[in-house]
């Protein structure tokens, strides 16, 4: 039976998974149960129709939201320890698949929980920008003004995804200098690499554990800009939860048609149909067949 396990929340992990949240699921009394994993971590389990296999879901929050402020060396150590704890959890979990989702909206219902557990993203709402977020507003307005197909939901989603990365990546009130922030960013990259290497399926925004950088003269720090553009491509790959089976069927049929057309073309090239042969060649064949 497809069972979804969701470890109980702790700083940076599954903050949505509370008793109150589970009670919103229909029939929660008979479907949802709480158990304790080997490391003493509490874990909710629920039978979830539509899930392909036994899965553990870990929804991670942005590092700047939960990492306690301290001298930078301590922050780096804390972040690396946090990453190791998560890797240990992955190693100790006896399921078919651990799905680590880096950021994005928290699930509001069973459908969204299933989408996250299946490795898809939930669409992010359009960010409301404040007066102090000038560079972001400039970016968003200039991008939207240059889109050729206005009103396309997928285009708006792509812009939103990029703006969310920029907002996470720009520190409006930097307490760390750039060199310190870079140290933390390096640690964040290390943790994401470790999570990928742990064997878990990692989806979501790869910048989520990157400490933000200060904006300079209204410009966007280059690493943050690159994160945002990469996110547009990545979210396209992971955002297809709404893709109907029919779409997959069209893609398969198109590939089949192309393959058949190539086989026919190869046959035609090797042995052209009579209708394509010049008259002289036809006469020569007639002579040969005699």
């Amino acid at each position, binding site marked *: 039976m497809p069972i979804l396990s969701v470890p109980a929340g702790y700083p940076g992990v599954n903050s949505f998974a509370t008793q109150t949240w589970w009670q919103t699921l229909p029939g929660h009394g008979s479907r949802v149960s709480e158990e304790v994993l080997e490391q003493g971590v509490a874990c909710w389990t629920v039978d979830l129709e539509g899930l392909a296999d036994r899965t553990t879901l870990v929804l991670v929050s942005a590092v700047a939201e939960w990492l306690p402020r301290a001298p930078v060396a301590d922050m780096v150590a804390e972040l690396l320890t946090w990453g190791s704890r998560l890797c240990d959890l992955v190693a100790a979990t006896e399921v078919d698949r651990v799905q680590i989702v880096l950021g994005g909206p928290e699930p509001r219902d069973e459908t969204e929980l299933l989408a996250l557990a299946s490795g898809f993203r939930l669409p992010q709402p359009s960010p409301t920008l404040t007066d102090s977020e000038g560079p972001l507003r400039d970016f968003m307005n200039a*991008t939207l003004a240059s889109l050729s197909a206005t009103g396309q939901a997928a285009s708006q989603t*792509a812009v939103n995804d990029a703006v969310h990365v920029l907002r996470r990546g720009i520190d409006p009130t930097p307490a760390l200098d750039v060199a310190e922030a870079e140290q933390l960013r390096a640690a964040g990259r290390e943790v994401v690499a470790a999570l990928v290497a742990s064997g878990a399926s990692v989806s979501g925004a790869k910048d989520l554990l990157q400490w933000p950088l200060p904006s300079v003269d209204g410009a966007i720090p280059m690493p943050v800009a690159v994160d945002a553009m990469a996110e547009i*491509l990545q979210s396209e790959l992971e*955002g297809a939860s709404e893709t109907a089976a029919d779409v997959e069927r069209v893609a398969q049929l*198109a590939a089949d*048609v192309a393959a058949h057309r190539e086989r026919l073309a190869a046959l035609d090239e090797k042995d052209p149909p009579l209708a394509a042969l010049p008259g002289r060649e036809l006469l020569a064949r007639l002579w040969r067949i005699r």
Partner: protein
Amino acid sequence: MRLPDGSVALHIGPHKTGTTTMQAALWANRHLLAEQGVDYPGVRRHEMDATMAVALGKVDPGKKLAAHRDHWYSLVEQMQAREARLSVFSSEFYCEADAARRREVLERLGPHTYVIVTLRPIVRLIASQWQQYTQNQLTIPYLEWLRDVVNNPEGSSLSPSFWRRHRHDLLVRRWAADVGTDRLVVVVADERDHRSLPEAFEELLGVAPGSLEAPKERLNRSLTFDEVTLMLEFNKRHRDVGWDQADYNRFIRFGAARGVQARPANPLDQPVLTPQWAIDRALEIGEMMAADIAASGVTVVGSLAQLYDPAFAPPAGENTPIGTVRPDVLAGFASGLINRMDDVRNTPSPRPAAGAVERAAWARRRSSEPELIADDLQRLESRLQQLREALAQRAAEGQPGRSRVLMELTRRLRRRLGR
């Protein structure tokens, strides 16, 4: 110099020598040229894919070599059928053709082909060529790249195609050996006069002055240092993540980079600056190449001395590295990328060789329009059935026998007799 009537003018570039401007002028004025007996075959400004297929034997990932090669042959057939006074083929990708492919191109175009090589001082195009490479996955910073390129005019290890394109003397000698020195024309555009290149072509083609007025829109402008730094940093990420090359071409090279170029360059942005040592070396190489071209015996329109005149060198300098990007530059990148993603929704099925992102972008956008999906399904299923039947018929028929050959001959005879 005016090319004789009945000639085919084959403009082979090389890159960054005004080819885009000339192709835009030929395309925009094709009807006016046709009235004067000059044919510019093609269905677009620059038949890049068709030329790459026939001149390089390859096309960009995600595209079909055979289809583009066939398209080039069909353009040649169209050109021959029209029997215009003069015909023009133009692509900078011809310049990289090896001996066998040059022979193939020249044989197909016929014995009355003249090869036109447009040249600019190497010192003026070197920065421009580097920033063009950064729009095609290059991750090497300018100074490191420059050191490798200008110190190795026999062949760069970082960009092997650079000197294949820009050893202009060897390029001229290669094609002159194939076509004859009397059939190769070098045009050196006057760097002080942007009309000099179209005027030289107007004279070669024997058309009225002003017939090759280029469109006003600015095409293919060079990226500024700020813009190119963003490309370079993104390329590193693209390489590290390992996304498809087909997706890079579709969404970055022909999407994001075009989006950046579509907005006017900010006058406050730094251009890409070339240091004095590299300028000096490029001028030396330019002088060496100009002497060799002069000695080759080909026809030269314009002044070869411009190719090594220090007066035409760009201002020397080195860019200050930047760690930020302005929101409007990033918006150009993002909108170019997203617009390209939106384009894919208009195709009824994903391209067979599409990258993973392109397939996902297509599915995501197409799935929001269920009625289109229903049409797609019906059309593809019907087409697949037809193809299956055609293949089954071919398998059943085997080698055609005497009676089928006779039937085909009879059918043709009847058609010819109008019965």
